[in-house]
């Protein structure tokens, strides 16, 4: 069955809330939790996709932003929980359990980190870029493990999910709706960015940096801005992920996490707006189904991944859709 890519995207995208609603009808809250998890991981990869898919920046360190978003949530909520203000040296900040404020902090902190890391990392290219981003990820990982103030390797538990005005976030379907709303909004935003003059310039810089310079634009600045937006979105996903689990830990900074984001993108289809969404859903589904098959289920996961990389180069969307994904 071959469908136009746009139709396919709409069908695949709506599958997620459909699953959640069916699960609600069948009283299977865990399926809703899984759908929420998929949506959050998709959001993180959608963020990375701006840098990787459109900008061609293979970052193996996006877990930094995911983790920073997570710790922004964890630290703010833990201070709210214990009613102690957060002492930042120059001023103190009250903890909070309000999601909008936490999101704002998560986005700001990860954007700032992306700016600093980008300023340094974007001086390199190719494998060196992959490796320097990995290095930043490892720095954060080891730092959080050995930094005792917020739990070190044990991480930080937030016993009650944070609040969002007008919603009961403890109800799985309401939290899912919130996450899905954020994902839809970010996808809309990313779609606009891809079609904007910035998106055109960024995509052109991936294909030919000299061309972009020759019309008077700086590829470095384009990439830096893309990296910052990308990091901010992944940071937002990190805050949501921490809220889903009501828990943050250094594993959010691990290089395997960064690797998984890339896997989502490639699994779904690189350079496609909905690629990360499809990839993340498929990954969560595979993980859920295969882990019951045997103790050695990771072998099957590896095999699926290998087959997709070797033989399905447009990812799942590429295999299902006719025509190629052109951003026109």
């Amino acid at each position, binding site marked *: 069955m071959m469908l136009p890519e746009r139709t396919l995207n709409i069908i695949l995208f709506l599958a997620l809330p459909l699953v959640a609603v069916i699960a609600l009808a069948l009283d299977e809250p865990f399926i809703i939790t899984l759908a929420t998890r998929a949506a959050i991981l998709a959001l993180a990869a959608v963020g990375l996709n701006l840098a990787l898919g459109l900008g061609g920046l293979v970052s193996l360190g996006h877990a930094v932003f995911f983790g920073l978003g997570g710790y922004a949530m964890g630290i703010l909520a833990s201070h709210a929980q214990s009613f102690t203000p957060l002492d930042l040296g120059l001023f103190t900040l009250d903890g909070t359990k309000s999601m909008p404020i936490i999101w704002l902090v998560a986005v700001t902190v990860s954007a700032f980190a992306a700016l600093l890391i980008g300023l340094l990392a974007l001086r390199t290219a190719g494998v060196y870029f992959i490796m320097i981003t990995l290095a930043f990820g490892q720095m954060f990982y080891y730092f959080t493990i050995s930094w005792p103030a917020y739990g070190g390797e044990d991480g930080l538990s937030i016993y009650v999910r944070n609040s969002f005005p007008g919603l009961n976030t403890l109800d799985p379907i309401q939290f899912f709706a919130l996450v899905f709303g954020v994902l839809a909004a970010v996808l809309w935003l990313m779609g606009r960015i891809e079609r904007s003059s910035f998106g055109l310039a960024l995509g052109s810089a991936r294909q030919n940096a000299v061309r972009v310079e020759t019309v008077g634009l700086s590829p470095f600045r384009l990439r830096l801005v893309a990296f910052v937006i990308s990091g901010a979105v992944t940071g937002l996903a990190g805050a949501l992920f921490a809220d889903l689990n009501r828990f943050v830990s250094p594993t959010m900074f691990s290089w395997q996490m960064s690797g998984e984001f890339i896997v989502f993108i490639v699994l779904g289809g690189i350079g496609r707006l909905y690629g990360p969404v499809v990839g993340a859903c498929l990954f969560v589904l595979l993980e859920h189904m295969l882990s019951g098959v045997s103790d050695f289920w990771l072998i099957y996961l590896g095999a699926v991944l290998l087959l997709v990389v070797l033989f399905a180069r447009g990812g799942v969307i590429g295999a299902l859709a006719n025509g190629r994904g*052109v951003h026109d």
Partner: protein
Amino acid sequence: MTEPLLDIRRLTKSFGALHATDDVSLTLLPSEIHALIGPNGAGKSTLIQQIAGGLAPDAGRVMLNGRDVTDLSTAERVKCGLGRTFQISALAMENTVLQNAMLGTVGATRSVWRFLTPIMQDGQLRVQAEAAIERVGLEDVAHARVSTLSHGQRRLLEVAIALTLSPKLFLMDEPMAGLGAEGTARMTAFLSELRREAPILLVEHDMDAVFALADRISVLVAGKVIATGTPDEIRGNSDVRAAYLGDEVPL
């Protein structure tokens, strides 16, 4: 006397013992086509890169429109009015012809930091881009991907993108290569008109085109400019003949 738009002063660049550019001075005056010729390995590419900003000279200055741009990046020189085309196409191959031209208008209007407005629906920029495509005669393939274009068409697209920038001067690296006889004739006529908009520093191997177009010609041999003059003066120059004899290029 009119001010030169491009003024290269005593530019020098060495790679180890090799003097790729050896004390080169050149000017480009308004409304002229100044051709730069020379045998392979004479240092034309190195010189162009120093003018465009891809390579820093060891000594000497590059003045663009009265401004010293020696320490500026490629992108900043473009903003000072330098329009460039490449010997080997530098294009976004997966994008369409129109998208490539639109990129030029984005650069020209400094409108890159717009994140939410769809660029292809921007009427004003689109009109400019389409006009440039039409001028070089690519309107029939405006929506084709660049990767499906012939070499000649890609060369024309390079020119079209440069046109969208409304530059103060053009730096063209072998625009005739791969065009065929008919294409070369069209391009020659086109460039001949274009010089009225902005002067052209033309690097070209097609000597018929060079002598038909150029107001002045400079000859670069082993990193040095050995002669500068009108086509007639260059034809009569014995040094040039000597330098070119081995290359059997008819002058």
